[in-house]
């Protein structure tokens, strides 16, 4: 029972993170062009797919998925392509952390899902950043 509640809580947490990322990409995408706009669009679509998947998993457990907020406070205003890239990087870093925590809370197939989602966030984050970090999603081990 406790583990069931814990799983549900973890799924709701990552769903809230995906909602925020979708909102953020909506903001960032408007400032990007060319290859970076394509990348933002692909990421936006991937996060929506993940959101839909999470909503289905939560409903299958008899719970109501958390809703997206009407708007989200951005860490800082986005008024250029460079700001948009910084925001996209930050979105993926935060999402990686939320998914990493979910890995610890989930088991079996749900953990497998979280491990893959962490990988996807790390790869997108590195593409926006243009560099790797040693421990994606683990702020306590990051410089």
């Amino acid at each position, binding site marked *: 029972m406790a583990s069931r509640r814990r799983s549900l809580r973890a799924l709701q947490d990552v769903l809230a993170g995906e909602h925020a990322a979708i909102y953020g990409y909506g903001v960032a995408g408007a400032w990007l062009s060319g290859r970076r706009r394509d990348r933002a669009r692909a990421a936006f679509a991937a996060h929506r797919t993940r959101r839909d998947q999470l909503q289905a998993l939560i409903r299958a457990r008899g719970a109501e998925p958390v809703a997206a907020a009407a708007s989200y406070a951005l860490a800082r205003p986005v008024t250029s392509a460079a700001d948009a890239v910084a925001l996209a990087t930050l979105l993926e870093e935060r999402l990686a952390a939320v998914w990493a925590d979910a*890995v610890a809370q989930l088991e079996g197939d749900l953990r497998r899902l979280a*491990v893959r989602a*962490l*990988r996807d966030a790390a790869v997108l984050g590195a593409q926006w950043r243009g*560099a*790797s970090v040693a421990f994606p999603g*683990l702020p306590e081990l990051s410089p």
Partner: protein
Amino acid sequence: MSMARPPELRRPSRREVLIGAGLLVASGCARAAVDVAPRPTADQRLAADVAEEIRALAARYAATVRRHPGLGGVLSPLAAEHDAHVRALVALQPVASPSPSASAAGSAAGSAAASPSVSPTAAAVPATPAAARAALVEAERVAAQRRRTQSLRAGAGLARLLASVAACESVHAALLGEG
């Protein structure tokens, strides 16, 4: 001369004596642990195995840079991340065992670079830089897949760490594959 008695000369309270006795017992345990390694948990054994695999991957990087020094700029930052992974995993080992493995981890990169004989994979580095790079992409993909599988059978905390290491290895494959 009515000086107060210096605090260090007062008699210890019963509580302090008890705590002291506890410390003696604790340090006795610690000493015993040096002589007889405590039985590692399943997670500690898994972490040790993973550290060994990552050392082998790091050795491939070192061998590749020796054969193709021009790749050093691209590969060195990634190799440093492998070293960080090994350190994080070694830190999970029981008290007695880190000394040999920790020193091995610390010197792995250096000794591999210093003495080619310690790296069995040196001969396996492809002849062109492009092929050598592609071989590392494949090695990182395989490593990430193994790490993901390993994270599924680990306890919560180790699973989180292994999932992050897996993600980093996937990033390495993606970054090396792009260039």
